[in-house]
């Protein structure tokens, strides 16, 4: 049961989100408007072929159906929204409708988090963690300013995790399968689910006697789970299989022609790698005999210019998609090991999800900065009952992770909003999250405190300072943000691994 305070806090959150309506919205706004239009005006078999707008449909079918459902409301609100030839339509009615759809669909996340708080015993900590998730800068910036539907999608993910916490493994699996049919980025965390469901749900041990594997029961469960998951994906993809459109779908969902780093380097390992390459280029120009020779290629003008394209390197070895794939898999080993070799509890699932998300974010090919929410949202659930180190890692990771989203909102108009929201959230998290009643900011080491405060300096340097400071090097502020926050994210990843593995095996 929701308390009055929960409702009031929800109301305040919604109020702020409504006030943000006139703020900047990115091209994603037009992307989703176009999807509304195309699902409304075209038969299903044309959805994945339509290309009047450059923003073609590249989410899996469930999301398309979600847009289809919304488009009926949109038609009642203002028919011009769903006119497929009415490109770049952004009248006030359209903005209101789309912004409102984000606010309302995000209630799924709220409901899921409240359920999580209840499952975790309804403690104050759990509620704090739930609200820190619901009102996080991640969703405020990416959904309510930049424009996307992450709140809704992560709501489904949290529901799935909550089902696991409640012991309904099958339901958790089905929900997650459905989530994959909404947005395939969640494949990043699929290994955690795979091992968890396989070993926790499917494998059944005999209650009596030697306690060996109960093969019959296990196979039965495997079939049950398999058929449920197949059913869900069948509903989603079946019609497209029947229409023979799967190759087209795959080419839309997985555009492999992109470069290693996104236009703005997501703060991951490759950002540091690219930065090191840049540094070596400058080094070998200044002192040719101390550094390895430059390879003659286009690298000298590439990724720092902020172009989406193949980034190549001049000093360090080039990185291929296969290499990032292997790196990601290797980095996911700890998560899987946790599930394979140790006691499998629902909390373990959440930990493994966090580690998998970490691995894909840090080492994946063409990662978006927004993917950091994939780590932060599940990790937010773990801080309901954190250890000290977990809390420290959460503080470092969440602040640097959310900070790394700031370049998404590049306009001067959003500057005070960015600063205020980041500060409000960070203060609340550091002050209200506690590990055995020690608030987070007291758990931090001096180095971590310095690092976190460093974001303030970074903000002054990259956002407030006059543009002439960086002269010709327009990309430098972005590189600074990306490298600085990447350090924090990498640090907290190592810390988390230590926390979860070393503590376990030591």
């Amino acid at each position, binding site marked *: 049961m929701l308390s009055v305070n929960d409702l009031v806090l929800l109301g305040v959150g919604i109020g702020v989100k409504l006030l943000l309506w006139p703020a900047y919205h990115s091209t994603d706004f037009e992307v989703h408007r176009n999807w509304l239009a195309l699902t409304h005006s075209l038969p299903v078999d044309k959805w994945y072929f339509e290309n009047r707008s450059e923003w073609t449909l590249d989410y899996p079918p469930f999301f398309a159906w979600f847009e289809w459902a919304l488009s009926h409301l949109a038609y009642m609100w203002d028919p011009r929204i769903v006119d497929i030839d009415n490109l770049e339509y952004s009248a006030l009615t359209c903005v209101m409708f789309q912004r409102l759809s984000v606010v309302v669909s995000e209630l799924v996340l709220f409901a899921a988090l409240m359920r999580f708080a209840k499952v975790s015993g309804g403690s104050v900590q759990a509620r704090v963690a739930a609200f820190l998730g619901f009102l996080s800068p991640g969703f405020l910036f990416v959904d309510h300013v930049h424009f996307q539907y992450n709140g809704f999608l992560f709501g489904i993910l949290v529901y799935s995790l909550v089902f696991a916490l409640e012991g309904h493994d099958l339901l958790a699996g089905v929900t997650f399968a459905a989530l994959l049919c909404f947005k395939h980025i969640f494949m990043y965390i699929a290994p955690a689910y795979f091992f968890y469901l396989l070993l926790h749900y499917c494998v059944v041990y005999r209650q009596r006697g030697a306690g060996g594997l109960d093969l019959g029961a296990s196979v039965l469960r495997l079939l049950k789970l398999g058929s449920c998951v197949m059913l869900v994906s069948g509903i989603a993809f079946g019609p497209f299989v029947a229409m023979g459109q799967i190759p087209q779908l795959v080419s839309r969902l997985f555009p492999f022609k992109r470069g290693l780093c996104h236009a703005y380097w997501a703060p991951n390992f490759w950002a540091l790698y690219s930065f090191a390459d840049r540094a070596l280029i400058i080094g070998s120009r200044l002192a040719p005999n101390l550094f390895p020779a430059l390879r003659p290629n286009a690298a000298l003008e590439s990724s720092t210019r902020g172009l989406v394209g193949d980034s190549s390197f001049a000093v360090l070895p080039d990185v291929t998609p296969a290499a990032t794939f292997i790196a990601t898999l290797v980095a996911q080993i700890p998560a899987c090991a946790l599930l394979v070799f140790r006691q499998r509890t629902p909390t373990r699932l959440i930990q493994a999800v966090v580690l998998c998300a970490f691995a894909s974010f840090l080492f994946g090919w063409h990662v978006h900065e927004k993917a950091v929410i994939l780590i932060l949202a599940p990790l937010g659930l773990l801080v309901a009952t954190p250890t000290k180190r977990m809390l420290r890692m959460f503080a470092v990771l969440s602040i640097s992770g959310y900070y790394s989203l700031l370049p998404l909102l590049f306009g001067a108009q959003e500057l005070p909003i960015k600063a*205020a929201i980041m500060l409000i959230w960070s203060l609340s998290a550091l002050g209200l999250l506690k590990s055995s009643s020690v608030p987070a900011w007291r758990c931090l080491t001096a180095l971590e405190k310095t690092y976190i405060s460093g974001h303030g300096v970074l903000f002054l340097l990259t956002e407030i300072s006059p543009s002439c400071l960086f002269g010709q090097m327009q990309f430098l502020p972005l590189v600074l943000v990306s490298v600085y926050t990447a350090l924090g994210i990498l640090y907290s990843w190592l810390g988390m691994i230590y926390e979860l593995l070393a503590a376990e095996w030591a």
Partner: protein
Amino acid sequence: MAPTTRSKEASGLKSSKKAAARPSDIVPINSWFRFLETQNSQAIALPLTLLFAVLVRWCVALYGYSGQGSSPMFGDYEAQRHWMEITTHLPPSKWYFYDLQYWGLDYPPLTAFQSWACGFVANLVNPAWVALDSSRGIETHESKLFMRGTVLVLDLAIFFPAIVLFFRSKRGFGSWVPQQVSIFTALLHPCLLLIDHGHFQYNSVMLGFLVWAVYFAAQEHYVYMAVAFCCALMFKQMALYYAPAVFFFLLAKCFQPNHGFALFIKLGFAVVATFGLMLLPWIQSPEQLTQILIRVFPVARGLYEDKVANVWCALNVVVKLRNMFETADLLRLATAATSLAFLPACIHLFVMIRRHKGKLLPAVRDNMVKLLNYSLLNTSLAFFLFSFQVHEKSILLPVIPALLLVDDEHWAVNWFVQVALFSMYPLLFKDGLQIPYAVLAIGWSVLRSCPVCPADKKTPRMVFLLQWLSTLVMVALHLAHMFISPPASLPDIYVVLNVVFSCAMFLFFFVYFNYRQFSLLSRPSSSRDMSTPNKRKTE
């Protein structure tokens, strides 16, 4: 905050249990601060309040402003921007003369100086924003951001610290929570927020100076108080609505036996020096000074301008006063009525302040400050209701002293602010601020629990019913305005209904707050403090 925290720790659980029984606990905003207290997170409360206040201000600033896109005259936004333009490019001798037809400067010198300072910065960043004549009606995105930024910076520099200092120095809260609630309430009440950051004006500067004046009164720094009030007056002549109360308060202080006369001399010197300093650029020319006076007090404009919820405008529905009398007669009538309305409160203030001589005990001093706030509220409300040439935005003036009393007048202040906000709706509607208006109005009503929550046993049953009734009327009028177009014969029907309703409510509040002022010292909690000062320890 440190002392309260310490006392809280000392008294421990017992006090928090006792405090939890307060009826205000059902108010959502109180339970937020109560929550922070139970979490031992008091340290983050004030920063969070301030940051949230900034966030909401800037969110409102994303919306439209007065006269946006309405060429050729635009609105208050363009007036303020235009003043930056003329003060930056012209010598002070031309400020009050330049092209008066196009938003000629008609605010006192401190506004002119503020315009000059802002214009100076604008000129450094992008001269096109304030280029003489050629920048008229400029509406680029960047220039809007700059203008919005100046309001926010001045608000942060003057209004915020005054509010925080006032409530942190105020005693008699009993605990930490109501103090924080008062700060939150004063910084986030919707009226000033929507007018300054939405409609676009710099009222928070003038009102901030007033709060500084009250703060200095509470600190017994009467000379500073006079200087702060002169600054308010020199920023916006509207501060005259407060002048009688400030005057009688300081006059009473001058009748003190020992230092009274010295104070009188000091005050006189401070006032003359402040005014002299502000008028320095024009001081040598009587013609210039007269021009400033004419510009600042436009008596020729008539009894009232737009529809405003005061007595004259409401009376106009029945009696067409403007057709019956000359403007000069109306001016006399309005002046007489205003004086009659504010004098009781001021004389009461004078008598009560005079009665207490010598060094004041903290409890007594607290009541003196409350008394000052009540009379500031009553005087400015009297001016709003009865004086000549009132703007709908002038309701901000009584709202501020009311907010300084928010801890003593829970339901009345909640309700008053609600009606004040409602009375400005026609103006905000014109500016396209319906969404922030709705969000902030609902936010205020919910967070402050107005109309009173049924669980609140302390508030009289009558108030409970009346508040609900008034809320229903306001909601009904909004819904009617949204869904039913007015009949052709009565195009202004909704504005007129708004004016009549708000005016009736303001008259009610005027009577009520006067009653509260007169009964302040005979109320149980206060009379004990006042009558037996010697027995109370000075903590």
